[in-house]
């Protein structure tokens, strides 16, 4: 049964008797799913793992779809290894370990985890896509998961949330975060540490070997330490800011007689909610879209537009 550590928010749940996955002992292949966002190095993690498995004599299949990887899209790589592997993709609900290089991506793929035994290891780093910042409703929430490690805690067998990016940055190279997660992954498998280090040293640029090996150890120690209940380094999970509810609302007023139809406000309105009407006078065509941002008010050369605040009480 999972024992839950409450002292450090970034350790979520550890199994009292964590399994070490050994492909020699199972007929079915071992399944590791690695996920993240384009540019984070998901494919590198899976290449290292695949090479180790290959060196140790297992059949390994590694499958990824990376068509949109370069455009900030979702990247995922399935790695399956054992004495015999058929499908290159992991069946849903059969992933033994899920490694996430980005917090929300870890949540996205959670359904792939094997219920009851699947291990979740996620960097708490957030990469907020521009799409999450689209809402124009006053006081709008960001379109990014509000789920915290606490929300995940009860739902998985064993889970770790660690600030790998921050730890790697402190060690001297932000880009080594994925190696730190490899160190974390290594604690779930029976492969010898030297084998991991040999392959990592072989795969990373020569100048960065030392820092990569150092953060690999950190990742390993982090998981081992939390499993033993020792205090582990790492920042606590920072929740997203709450929306500002007590906001000012502005209503827009256009003095038609002063407007000369120069079109400046229409062209510059970020919400594109102004038009020139048939009399060539500015008009708020879509009042529900206006955020009261003042841009038209400030840019109008003839002071024809004014924004007037209304108080919360008046709104209510």
């Amino acid at each position, binding site marked *: 049964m999972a024992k839950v550590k409450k002292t450090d928010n970034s350790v979520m749940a550890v199994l009292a008797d964590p399994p070490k996955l050994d492909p020699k002992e199972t007929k079915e292949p071992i399944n590791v799913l690695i996920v993240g966002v384009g540019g984070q190095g998901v494919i590198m993690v899976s290449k290292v793992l*695949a090479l180790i498995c290959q060196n140790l004599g297992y059949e390994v299949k590694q499958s990824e779809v990376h068509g949109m990887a370069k455009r900030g899209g979702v990247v995922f790589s399935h790695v399956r290894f054992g004495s015999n592997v058929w499908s290159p993709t992991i069946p849903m609900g059969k992933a033994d370990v899920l490694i996430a290089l980005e917090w929300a991506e870890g949540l996205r793929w959670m359904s792939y985890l094997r219920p009851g035994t699947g291990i979740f290891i996620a960097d708490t780093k957030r990469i907020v896509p521009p799409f999450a910042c689209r809402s124009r409703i006053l006081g709008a929430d960001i379109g990014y*998961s509000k789920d915290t490690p606490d929300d995940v805690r009860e739902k998985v067998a064993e889970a770790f949330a660690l600030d790998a990016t921050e730890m790697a940055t402190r060690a001297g190279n932000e*880009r080594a975060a994925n190696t730190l997660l490899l160190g974390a992954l290594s604690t779930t498998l029976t492969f010898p540490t030297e084998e991991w280090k040999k392959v990592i040293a072989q795969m990373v640029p020569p100048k960065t070997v030392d820092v990569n090996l150092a953060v690999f150890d950190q990742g390993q120690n982090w998981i081992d330490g939390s499993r033993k209940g020792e205090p582990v380094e790492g920042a606590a999970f920072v929740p997203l800011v709450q929306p500002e509810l007590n906001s000012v*609302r502005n209503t827009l007023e256009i003095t038609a007689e002063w407007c000369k139809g120069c079109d400046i406000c229409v062209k510059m309105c970020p919400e594109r909610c102004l038009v020139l009407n048939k009399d060539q006078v500015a008009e708020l065509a879509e009042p529900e879209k206006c955020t009261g941002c003042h841009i038209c008010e400030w840019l109008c050369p003839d002071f024809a537009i004014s924004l007037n605040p209304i108080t919360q009480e008046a709104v209510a």
Partner: protein
Amino acid sequence: MSSKAEQASPTAIKTGITHQMTGNEAIARAAWEAGVKVASAYPGTPSTEIMENMGRYPVGDVHAQWATNEKVALDVAIGASFSGVRAMTMMKHVGLNVASDALMSQSYIGAHGGLVLIVCDDPGIHSSQNEQDSRIFGRFAQIPVLEPCDAQEALDYTKIAFDISERYDTPVMVRSTTRISHTRSPVLVSERVTPDDLGFNMDVSKNVMVPGHARQRHPVVIDRLERLAEELETSDLNRLELGSSKIGIITSSMSYVYVKENLPEASVLKLGLSFPLPKKLIQDFCAKHDRVIVVEELEPVIENEIKTWGLKVEGKEFFPRIGELSPEQTRISFEQAGVLEPEANALGPQFEPLIRPPVLCAGCPHAMSYTAIRSLDVRVAGDIGCYTLAVGDPLTAIDTTVAMGSSIANATGMYLAGTETKPIVATIGDSTFIHSGIPPLIDAVYNQANITVILLDNHITAMTGGQENPGTGKTLRGEQTHQINFEEMIRACGVEWIERVDSYDAASMMQTMRESIAYRGVSVLIADRPCVLDPVKIKGPSMSVDAKDCNACQGCMNLGCPALIWSDEWYEGRHIVKIDPTACIGCSVCAQFCPTGAIQPTVVLDQKSAKAKPCGVE
């Protein structure tokens, strides 16, 4: 951790042992091992890496090159085949539509030097405009279609394809899918064997397809397929794994591994080719089993043909015709067919954390082009490339997208319809313009359309990962070659209004675009700025937002630049904006839009690097 830039030469790897390779790497290796002398292709996901890998093999061994489009690529390969050497072309599924005109006739002509087409389908539409099943095209063209199921078979089948091509005097298709092309699995490699050059085959009745000759050739086509089908009755290309006589599975390609994943002990007939089919072998297999199920991804190609023989098989009543097959979908289908016991819904916890659609890069020049287009209130016929991403929020500046090169002629048609009240604009990338945008431009001028063409010249074929093209003046192997002068070419098409503008110059872009749509006739505006990702990553010092000046108007957010996100501060209920310095490349476009002047170059406090560095190439 990032990968080392240079990999070892692919010819240096040891033979006789296995290496982890993607399907695409294995196909390139197969081409080299088979002694292919000429390979020509146009990029397209998921096929692109085949040619990129071929470009790593020695120049003396293979002429590997990017063509201007898939038909040109196939015609180049056909020419090499005429001249008696092995030739190959590779393309994504929709590329075959472009190449098909040549293919349909070449099927009658056959192959002097081995002629192989690698066609990569995209079930699930990971990055394409449709989900067509190219196996149907193979039958249509009456050419054999080989279907590998992993990287090893991709290598083996590609080599066998050359052998079949030469022995049966036919072009041959090897059909891959995204999953095969992009999956790494162990591959046993061997030495290269170079066939003798055969020289040109002087045979006009075979090589020149006029009606009289074509009528002679059609029976030859039918005959060779019958002979091949006969050979396939006993060929190793089909794998027969007999188990219980209750249920037999007929399958091919990736579907085979999904079947094995779920039913490792089942009776399976795995077909190496989906066309032509070994009829007797299949009849015998059906006779041995009480019930036969055909498992195929996408269309019921094999299933339908078997049914025409009067045999009773099942398949598409359980297996989807839409989307990519998966181990779990295969399981569900077998459960529906009553072959497997329903499994309890055993999934991990479900979360819906956020939507993360692909976006234009920070500093992408297309963002400014579409911002200007959007401000003009025009009708936009779009095309295919990175810039198609401008269809989504916040740019929302594309009204139609059909196929590569469609934009200009679509715009002409909109103009001719006479119903459009807005000015009509076609947007097209440099590579797409060269691929198939030139004939429609000539057509637009010839037929006196009133449209504006915006040529989005980012100096690369970006969407597919940054391939050279005639507009870049470099070859696949990075050598200098002739560089197209777009203005000269467009002028030669008869266009009289041509302007080139820096895409990062917001004011000029807006003003020049306004002028271009005011012009009556065909006008071409060239939006000029290199892609920030390829061929070199561009990263200048970042810009930053001064929170005290930002009134959170969200104007800059309309660019959709992924470096611009919300900060934790608010202004009158709106989010103040910040810039992620690691993502921002310093293009300054957002600063040109900010009405309060809140966006400024980041002040460098460190004295050593205090000298202002211009935005440049990293």
